């Protein structure tokens, strides 16, 4: 059985694409067959984060419009077995994606035996974001510990519960997960930033993980390697923990407190 996961947030720039890349890669590292789809029509980015930007020949819209088949458009990852990327179209036509078109592609991936289909949503709550979440079985709602991001996350949780395929057809609701990204323990400790408890109390959704603010993320995107592949880094380890929890394993939360030894270990290279 294929599972469709959407990575969404409402607010832009909170870490959806970073998360989609690492979640897809992490699931494939665990032996699952995974496709990750960029739904951000006109603003293709996932290809860069996955490091496949020079191998895009056909994209999502090409498949929807029948100009290419899935086999032609799926880009096979060169590092990890069973990981495939479907790039967003760079067309300016925002209406290039339709509900039927998306359904056709998802059905195609299901019959190709994909275990997980990860949908990287565009920002906003308009059509693009609604299409990305519409057919989802589970949703990872990404939020930063910051007021506008939390408010938008709550709007998105409302939409998942009322405007998705599952909601409209009275099916069991989408399983929701909260992923807090760009968390700064130091700033939370001195009361400059909302804590994880604050965010969970407000949003009332089970916590999938906390990804610390980390220079490793920029390094990862610079080199086109999803940060989960950098298992030396805090962010990479935090994403690996999130994968474990997604697969039903128990993992204690890490990187929530200021690591007093961190400075020295960094200074002396561990």
């Amino acid at each position, binding site marked *: 059985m294929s599972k469709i996961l959407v990575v969404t947030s409402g607010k832009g720039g909170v870490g959806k694409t970073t998360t989609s890349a690492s979640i897809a890669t992490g699931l494939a590292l665990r032996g699952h067959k995974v496709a990750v789809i960029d739904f951000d029509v006109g603003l293709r980015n996932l290809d860069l984060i996955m490091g496949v930007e020079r191998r895009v020949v056909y994209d999502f819209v090409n498949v929807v419009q029948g100009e290419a088949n899935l086999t032609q458009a799926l880009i096979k990852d060169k590092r990890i077995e069973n990981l495939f990327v479907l790039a967003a179209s760079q067309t300016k036509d925002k209406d290039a994606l339709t509900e039927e078109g998306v359904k056709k592609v998802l059905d195609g991936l299901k019959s190709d035996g994909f275990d997980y289909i990860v949908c990287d949503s565009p920002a906003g709550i308009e059509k693009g974001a609604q299409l990305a979440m519409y057919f989802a079985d589970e949703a990872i709602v990404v939020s930063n510990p910051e007021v506008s991001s939390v408010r938008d996350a709550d709007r998105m949780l409302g939409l998942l519960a009322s405007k998705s395929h599952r909601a409209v057809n009275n099916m069991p609701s989408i399983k929701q997960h909260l992923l807090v990204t760009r968390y700064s323990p130091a700033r939370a400790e001195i*009361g*400059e930033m909302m804590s994880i408890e*604050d965010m969970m109390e407000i949003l009332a959704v089970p916590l999938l993980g906390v990804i610390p603010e980390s220079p490793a993320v920029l390094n990862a995107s610079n080199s086109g390697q999803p940060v989960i592949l950098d298992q030396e880094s805090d962010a990479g380890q935090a994403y690996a923990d999130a994968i474990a929890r997604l697969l039903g394993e128990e993992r204690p939360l890490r990187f929530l407190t200021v690591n007093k030894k961190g400075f020295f270990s960094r200074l002396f290279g561990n």
Partner: protein
Amino acid sequence: MGLLNFFRGKKENTAKLAKERLQIIIAHERAQNRPSHEFLPKLEKELLDVIRRYVQIADDAVKVKLDRDGDVDVLELNIVLPDQVAKE
């Protein structure tokens, strides 16, 4: 209050303030975006069925309306009984 505490106290307030403001605005927005009207047609039909077990009434004899009065939802039922029943 020492100078250090003064600054620290001020910072502590911003995260707390953020949380308090969010709790208020989110409660408000959740109430507004609730898809409360979706069940009304079904409620209308089921009420009609129940009443018909006792009284024969017309298809349009049951009217259900949901209104919002400030923070309170008001459910208004209007059931028109046929003349001879009303007289009894």
